[in-house]
């Protein structure tokens, strides 16, 4: 479980990007919604351990992720940026990157490569791919390490309809055993999400919870 406790964030001394956020995310699919600049991406980064909050704490499985024991628990968390990041390497190396960085980390790449029919592109330099394929590779890199907590910022913005549906189906299935948080503008997952949190001006405007 991810617990967001009284989290506020500001880049300068005056303006809060997020203010006094309290949320919990259990196993399931969770959506963060709101207009541009509402604080969705900032919240995703704070939960992922890459942007310490100005105030408040983030607990994952009861561990303060910015505390001394935080690094170990963050191994279970993967965040994928909205802007696809691919390395100047082959598509295959990009997908198994998590395993290259942490030797011995289990990687489930072959299943994903077959599922998304990327066999013919494996040797190609990922930098030469279209924006849609770059986003797909960024997502598959995250899926391949099977994170317990998967946090995605606008994961389908560049994908065509076919890949979009496949990714959404994968995420719905994946969220049955894991915690998936998605910052998105799109309505595609509204019906299946466990919770939908609406942010506005860095504050929680509304939260819908389903059992």
């Amino acid at each position, binding site marked *: 479980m991810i617990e967001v406790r009284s989290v506020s964030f500001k880049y300068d001394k005056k303006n809060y990007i997020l203010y006094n956020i309290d949320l919990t995310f259990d196993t399931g699919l969770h959506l963060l919604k709101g207009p541009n600049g509402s604080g969705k991406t900032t919240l995703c980064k704070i939960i992922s351990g*890459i942007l310490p909050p100005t105030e408040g704490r983030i607990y994952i499985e009861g561990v303060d992720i910015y505390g001394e024991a935080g690094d170990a628990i*963050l191994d279970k968390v*993967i965040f994928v940026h909205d802007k696809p*990041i691919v390395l*100047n390497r082959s598509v295959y190396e990009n997908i198994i990157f998590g395993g290259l960085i942490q030797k011995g980390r289990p990687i489930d790449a072959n299943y994903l490569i077959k599922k998304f029919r990327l066999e013919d592109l494996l040797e190609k330099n990922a930098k030469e791919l279209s924006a849609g394929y770059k986003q797909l590779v960024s997502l598959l890199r995250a899926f391949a390490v099977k994170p317990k907590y998967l946090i995605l910022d606008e994961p389908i913005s560049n994908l065509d309809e076919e890949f979009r549906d496949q990714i959404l189906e994968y995420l719905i299935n994946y969220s049955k055993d894991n915690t998936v948080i998605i910052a998105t503008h799109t309505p595609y997952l509204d019906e299946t999400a466990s919770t939908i949190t609406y942010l506005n001006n860095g504050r929680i405007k509304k939260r819908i919870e389903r059992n």
Partner: protein
Amino acid sequence: MDLTVIEITLRSLFVSGGATVLASIWSIPLGIILSISTNKASRIALSIANMMVGIPTVLIGLLLYMILSKSGPLGFLNLLYTPMAMMIGQAVLITPLVISFIYEVVSGEARELIEMLKIYGASKMQMVETIANEARDRVIGTAIIGFQRAIGELGIALMLGGNIKGLTRVFTTAIALEVQKGEFELAIQLGIILLVIDLLLITIIRLKGWMK
């Protein structure tokens, strides 16, 4: 072409090329580490590097002269008035420049890459290696700019090299000497070669898109 001109050209390229390699060995990783780190010490180190970019070459020459002279702490190495001393001096000179440029390159373009590497649990060494590889073109461009600064400086070459004919005479020291002697022909020849090298490097950087 005069043999002296060829000799001075080759020595200048060797000394400044060596200085660039030396400086790159420590400055590129350091610049990347400073861009990855968010602590106060890193910010202070970067501010110092930025301040040092424009430091007069004679000051570095003076400092290293005192360190490398017979009575200095490293006098026993007998490096003073050797190409190696010039190389070290020029490497020290361009270190802040390379660090500052690398910082700009990495923090400006690779912020999300740094975040991605942190998310996947990359060590500092893995981050440096990956970022250097991803920003390879810009890193090469930065090293070339460092080389240009090194090959065009006079103070360090003069103070640490001593402008010894056949041993430590390079473009800038030779030009200065020939002008003092009133021998403009050799000075102009060397000046043109230095200018051509500079223009060639700028053209390569621009054409390859190694620096914006």
